């Protein structure tokens, strides 16, 4: 059974919002616990560097 999904529907939402602030704002208006992340591309968006970082982690 998809218990983690059932939990998502049953329990209050706790949201990490990556990107558009408006989406976080509309969740806050609905009294949802939300944290805004002003996401930026990793390693300045340098693809080779991102691959390297992923391999190191």
């Amino acid at each position, binding site marked *: *059974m*998809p*218990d*983690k*999904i*059932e*939990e*998502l*529907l*049953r*329990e*209050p*939402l*706790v*949201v*990490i*919002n*990556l*990107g*558009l*602030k*408006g*989406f*976080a*704002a*509309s*969740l*806050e*208006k*609905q009294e*949802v*616990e*939300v*944290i*805004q*992340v*002003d*996401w*930026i*591309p*990793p390693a*300045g*968006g*340098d693809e080779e560097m*991102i691959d390297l970082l*992923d391999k190191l982690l």
Partner: protein
Amino acid sequence: MAAGFVIRKNQYYDSVFLMGVNKRLSQTKGVLQTAVLMASEKNKQLLADIGIQGDQIVTAKPNDLIVAVIGETSQVVDSVLQGIDQALLALEEKGPASHLQTLEDGLVEKPNANLAVLTIPGEYVFREASKALEAGLNLFIFSSNVPIEEERKLKELAADKNLLVMGPDCGTSILGGVGIGFANVVNRGLFGAIGPSGTGLQEFTSQIHNAGYGISHAIGTGSRDLSDEIGGITTIQALDTLEADPQTKVVSIIAKPPGGKTLERLLARLKICSKPIVGCFLGARMDSFEGGDALTWAPTIDDAVLAAIQHVGEKPTVARIELTKQERELAAKSRADWAPGQRFLRGLFAGGTFCYQSQQILGEAGIVVHSNTPLNPQTKLTNPDRSSEHTMIDMGDEFYTQGRPHPMIDGTMRRLRILSESRDPSVAVLLLDFILGYNASMDPVGDVLDAIMEAKQTMRQQTGELMIVASICGTKEDPQELDLQVKLLREAGVIVFQSNAKATLFCCELFKPA
């Protein structure tokens, strides 16, 4: 003519924000063209295409902001570029302040999180989404342009972990009464919904609310979930979940027709579903497909609402979709007012599902319709900007939204198209949709109202009356004030319906073959 650009190193902004800045700069007197974008390789190419090049651009990184301006004079260009920092500040997004920049930062702050919402560029989605799944988070991915093989991998990983991936390209979900993305404010209740399309779910959930009922959960799946490449992974998971959910009494699926193999898989699953199911696969007649006793097919979203309500054994308060006597009389009277040359219908939609549903309803009434997103590939417009006879345009299609905001948040492109249609004397009627709810424009009617007035005036001067028919998708609880939006339209002489299907049915009455 003069051109220039500035680069702001390590100043990253999301594309929706930058589109807003671009729009503001482009409205400056003397400015011919502007580009405000992050220095990704794709964007650098777009700049080269308009003649903006330089060593600094070549070495710029995706986290660097480039603002380029082409103006009538070098003074105009210099003045705009000097004012860029103020413009960025003035338009700074409204929303919670944040000092966090990575998913990991977010997880430290909210170790109890159960959902990550992603609106980041598509090329980075797989990396961030995989990490979120590994951390045990469900996902709502609004981003598009995610390679389909990455979508499949994410959904398979999620299924292994009993997690849900709503998206990519997911516009709407309502979970436990909370609207995520583009969602209307609706009551909680007995009705569950699943769908790849944001506007399809918005229309269904709003109509359920407006009929006096409520939504348990509406689960967006992403636009490609029912393709054979994905195989309906999220749709089946959502079905399993809503079947097990004690609050949900009926499950409705609102979608375009699935791929052949996926349809077989879905039908097999529906046959063993213990709860009533309403299937609304727009654009295809599904009646001949056997999906078990629990399944009712509905040809339109309005029919799906009606069927769902009937399943819980209550007397529906929504009418079957047919026109009233007064509406038929109004159609007959309006037709009589047209000038001899006025013969065609033009639909200009913010919601892709509405464009699709309108084509289906008109097609079933024997009215041949052309479109940029046609039901029938033979009626595809060669140039989306040029209508042909009866035409339905999805203004949210990539052709209109590449580098520009979607018509649900910005009416600029639709205003221009309304005006251009009014200069065609063969046009008799415009069919429009307006979509309310969280994250949509705060005044969708106001965004195009002056264009509606001007279009009517233009048509009056050259031929006769331009009739405008519209539907509004929304509820009285939405932030935009439904009643005010309806009032604005009616005062402008627009005929307003509560659903796209009903508005289209009215157009069928206007254009039915003699």
